[in-house]
């Protein structure tokens, strides 16, 4: 697995997240969406829980030990998970890098 040693900017993290989302839900659906940091996972991106599992696995594989993404998600209740948006994940990854 590739581990990131250089700090990524918000834009770079956003692009990487967008790439993961595309891989999980498929290009044909992503083309119809305007993905932004405000996009929520369940409402805007319409990702269900098994797709969020795939997405989490991609983050784990990319960042390795550096980021405990599943641990961060497991601290959230259902309402928080429903309201989770891309910007929150970008901020979390940014924090883990600093």
């Amino acid at each position, binding site marked *: 697995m590739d581990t990131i040693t250089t700090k990524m900017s918000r834009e770079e993290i956003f692009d990487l997240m967008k790439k993961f989302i595309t891989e999980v*839900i498929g290009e044909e*659906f992503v083309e119809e969406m305007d993905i932004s940091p405000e996009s929520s996972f*369940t*409402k805007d991106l*319409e990702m*269900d*829980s*098994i797709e*969020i*599992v*795939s997405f*989490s*696995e991609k983050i784990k594989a990319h960042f390795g030990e550096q980021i405990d993404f*599943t*641990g961060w*998600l*497991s601290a*959230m209740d*259902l*309402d928080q*998970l*429903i309201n989770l948006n891309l910007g929150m994940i970008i901020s979390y990854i940014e924090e883990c890098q600093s």
Partner: protein
Amino acid sequence: MPILNINGKSVHIQELNKGAAETIILIHGMFSNLSVYYFNIAPLLATQFHVVLYDLKSHGMSEKVLEGYDLESMTDDLLHLMEALELKKVHLGGYSFGGLIALKMAIRFPERIHKLAVIEAPDPNDDKTRGIIDEYSREFLEHYVENFTDTTKVKMGKRQMERNHRMYEYLFYQTSIKADMELEKGFFGSAAITTIEQPTLLLYGTDSNCLNAGKQLEGLIDQASLIAVPGDHNIPIQEPLVIAEALFHFFKETSN
């Protein structure tokens, strides 16, 4: 994404805390997938145990399979998974249909199972349970999604509705699931179920249609104790921490 080839079929699994001495395998329910455990329940159990989650055939990210939804075949699948992972003896937890698989495992392979936790397993002879399979339609899906799935709080969008619709259509009309479930009607009435000797935790929702099934099992299994948790059939989604802690204490205090 960890995908294993088991008996020529792809099975999606997730493992947490691989190095731990004891293993818990968790089985999800019908029309669901391993994500029911992935976010809350599995991480808590993994603070002490090796936890294995897997997607049942045609569910989640496991391969679609036309046949073999009876409890005999479903437990064969699980035994093969245990062998592939070189697990000799495990604790087992199952939710809903997964609870029936867990019970069948304890009947068929008692020497491979330490302790048993059954969450909201329905009585297969119950008309309401079988009714779900008999009366499938698009309207039924919309109603089911509103009331019974793990997405209760989220309005399903078009893409998700289509995805789910395709899964239900496949399971209901192309696979042998209906006929296979019909064969299991007598499961709670069979003598085999009274042979279960493992300490068994039964977790049911106080407002669940399945609570009576839990009470039945408590009477049938020697070392069973029933805990009723506030909620309905969806307790692992409604109260993941309550369920996780109940499972954790049960497996911990009874483990040798």
